[in-house]
């Protein structure tokens, strides 16, 4: 404190005395409210300490809670990637572009094939059903006149192998 000035220390001391006196004169109503406030604060502290974790556990939790959002984001990204990634069902080989499937595509792309699909050739369906009834035997074992059409040029006209 600035004791270099004459009487400053006395002045400070007198101010202190006056302020202490004013503290002593605080009324009963204010003291009562302060008392209630103090009890409320202590109850709050007691409630808080009952649920407070030990210091080391709290530090551990804080550290891990800090990383939790980042971990959660990574996990969510991995889950999204797993769901969206194209994958075959387990136990089955992955689909390959076999010669048969390419053949089917050719049939569909072909103009004649399109006519056949649009229902212009009932004979073909009859032949296909007969094939199914025979238990899927090769076309060479089929009776005469019900053989598989030879090439696309015969589709929709005459199923017999011999034209004319």
């Amino acid at each position, binding site marked *: 404190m*600035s004791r270099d000035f004459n009487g*400053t220390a006395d*002045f*400070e001391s*007198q*101010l*202190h005395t*006056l*302020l*202490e*006196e*004013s*503290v002593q004169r*605080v*009324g*009963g*109503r*204010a*003291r009562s*409210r*302060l008392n209630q*406030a*103090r*009890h*409320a*604060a*202590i*109850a*709050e*502290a*007691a409630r*808080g*300490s*009952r649920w*407070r974790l030990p210091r080391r556990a709290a530090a551990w939790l804080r550290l891990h809670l800090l990383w939790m959002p980042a971990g959660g984001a990574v996990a969510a990204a991995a889950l999204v990637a797993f769901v969206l990634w194209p994958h075959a069902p387990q136990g089955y080989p992955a689909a390959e572009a076999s010669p048969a499937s390419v053949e089917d595509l050719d049939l569909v792309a072909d103009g004649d094939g399109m006519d056949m699909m649009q229902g212009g050739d009932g004979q073909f369906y009859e032949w296909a059903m007969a094939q199914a009834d025979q238990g899927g035997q090769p076309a060479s074992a089929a009776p005469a006149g019900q053989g598989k059409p030879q090439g696309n040029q015969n589709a929709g006209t005459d199923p017999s192998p011999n034209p004319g």
Partner: protein
Amino acid sequence: MPAAPRGEVDLSDSPSNARCRALSQFLAGVEVRAFKIAQAALRHEDDALDAVQDAMLQLARAYSDRPAEEWKPLFYRILENRIRDMQRRRTVRNRVMSWLPFRSEAGEDEPDPIAEAASDDPLPMRRLEIDEAMGALEKALTALPRRQQQAFLLRTLEGLDVAQTARAMGCSEGSVKTHYFRALQTLRAQLGELI
């Protein structure tokens, strides 16, 4: 351990209860001075009581596990923030209220009849002198700039040292010394003849 009765705080022996006891003693030691400091800043008894109550709750809630020697600067820092909030809110409220035509100010600052009741003081003349000096001091204190007032009251009334006052005010020790010295000069100029 028997449970505390409903509505009361169990302060039986355990580390946390010992801390609660220490906190209770600390608050009991500072509450009236804190109230006077808040009252000087807010110039309203109920507002000052609210500010002290909020500061107590905040200290208990958030800082009760800090070392006990840190409580005082922390408590006064919280109180100062609370006072500033209330001053801001009051400014806004007054601005809004000034537009209302039907506001009534009568009865808001009525004196408490119990507090105003005459006491059986044995030295009425001395008391009169003290009353006069105290009234002048309180008037001079409320007229001080806020930071000077704060530095003066924390140093003189609460007895904090310069470092603790700086922590409570959130400024440097040099600033505390400056504020305190200016406050002292102003008070001396105004009260020099009375005290």
